[in-house]
């Protein structure tokens, strides 16, 4: 490995040795901390052969978990997109009292541990919770069913789109949009023809991150799921369940599907970053 100095980099000779040392250290550490655990997941998943792996993936409960996780992701994505754009537009384009406070609240879910978010939802919608009696009277089931899982997922993923889109909208300013308005375009036309094309990559990026998070959420969902086999178990919960069922290979097989999704996310991310640069 011969490091060539980057444009702004240091003078050669002894720096070359430092560079080699640092690169070597960086690669070695990353290998141990990130790459090996990743490889280990696939290794364990396939340790009893591909047939066993496939059989584990095709087990009805695991298939249902994959299905449920997909449903949750598909429901949360459009909501996140709409709200993310709405919040970014509001904060980037208008001044109003409490603007900074609103932004802080939008980002709040990043700071709250997901498991605590789950506890919050339990205290709100649980039968003993704030809205519990009202919900029970109306025979509305939120917790331990799909709505509860979707709601906590929305909570943990809500800041992603706004966070990606907002700085970009801010940086681009609103001259183009104002020009279009002056030329007689309607608000909706301005948004579709001017704003959306400008933010599309940031939007996609936010969507990818939010979806990755929705697919992988564990802590928050574990509090509100009720772990009904083949009913309310998402894929991350299914991993824990299989692990506790002493089906270790099955747990790693389920984990490997999530790992694959994570890798796809990374590829998408790299592609999108290439586009935006």
């Amino acid at each position, binding site marked *: 490995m011969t490091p060539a100095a980057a444009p702004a980099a240091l003078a050669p000779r002894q720096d070359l040795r430092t560079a080699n040392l640092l690169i070597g250290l960086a690669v070695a550490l990353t290998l141990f901390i990130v790459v090996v655990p990743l490889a280990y997941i696939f290794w364990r998943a396939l340790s009893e052969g591909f047939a066993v792996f496939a059989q584990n993936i095709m087990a009805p409960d695991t298939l249902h978990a994959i299905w449920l996780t997909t449903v949750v992701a598909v429901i949360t994505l459009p909501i996140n997109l709409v709200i993310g754009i709405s919040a970014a537009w509001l904060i980037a384009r208008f001044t109003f009292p409490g603007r900074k406070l609103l932004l802080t609240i939008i980002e709040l879910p990043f700071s709250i541990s997901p498991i*605590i978010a789950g506890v919050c939802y339990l205290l709100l919608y649980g039968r003993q919770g704030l809205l519990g009696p009202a919900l029970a009277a109306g025979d509305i089931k939120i917790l331990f069913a799909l709505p509860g899982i979707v709601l906590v997922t929305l909570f943990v993923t809500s800041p992603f789109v706004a966070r990606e889109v907002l700085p970009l909208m801010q940086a681009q300013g609103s001259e183009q949009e104002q020009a279009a308005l002056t030329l007689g375009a309607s608000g909706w036309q*301005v948004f579709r023809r001017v704003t959306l094309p400008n933010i599309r990559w940031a939007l996609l990026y936010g969507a990818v991150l939010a979806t990755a998070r929705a697919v992988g959420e564990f802590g928050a969902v574990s509090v509100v799921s009720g772990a009904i086999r083949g009913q309310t178990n998402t894929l991350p919960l299914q991993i824990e369940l299989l692990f506790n069922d002493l089906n270790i290979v099955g747990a790693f097989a389920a984990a490997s599907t999530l790992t694959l999704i994570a890798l796809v996310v990374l590829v998408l991310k790299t592609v999108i970053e290439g586009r935006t640069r």
Partner: protein
Amino acid sequence: MSVAAVIEAPTRRQKRVLPGFGLTMGLTLTYVGIIVLLPVIALVLKGAEIGPLRFWEIVTAPRTLAALRLTITAAALATAFNALYGLLMAWVLVRYRFPGRRLLDAMMDIPFALPTAVAGLALTALFSENGWYGAILAPAGISVVYTIWGVAIAMAFTSIPFVVRTVQPILEDLDASQEEAARTLGATPFQIFSRVIFPAILPAYLIGTTIAFARSLGEFGAVIFIAGNLPMKTEVASLLAVIRLEEYDYNGAAAIALTLVAIALVLLALSNWLQAQLTRRRVPA
């Protein structure tokens, strides 16, 4: 990562010229109210119900204190590691060109993309006594799984991206002329780093470590696999909140949860303040 502080107010001229104020305001407020605020309010109300005296009792009970101490210590260990590792990675990725650099760069996002439960599962299996790493460490008398080290490792793994990804862009944008000048004046590479480069990246560096620390404090999915949940020893605070819940002790759960939220908010404020400092420095008023 907070963007709150970097957003400057639009100029007054633009105010209300653009359409959609009412729509986006209504939509955003309703959504944030229902999805984010309402549940948090439920927690705060539950906490208020407890009464300050009982609240204090719960939070200062030996087991709660031990859990908080463990959580903070392990998070500090994890953050210390990431402060060094993150700086190294940011430096190597920005300053050197070598084959595989982009791949290495992409690796930095894996802990973010990988579900924490998967990370916990893999790390536990690797570090347990019959795992790949555990088998090497065990003869040396080092046990990781079910100790504070396991907790710290799980936290460190899940918060890897934060320091790297906050320092990287700042390092990339750094003006080379100051370094040139310093070199011309005969400064050693170490002097250049400590006197020129490090002060420039310090605010971003602090933000990154603050976020990494906050994230470590709240980590749950990866930690519960590896921690062992031994009360007073390896029980993290968020797990204790869940255990209290499972024991029907709603007050205990709410009090601990509220404490964690409060700590998170303080850290969020700290990182916003740092970000404001950073913006001020980069864009002189």
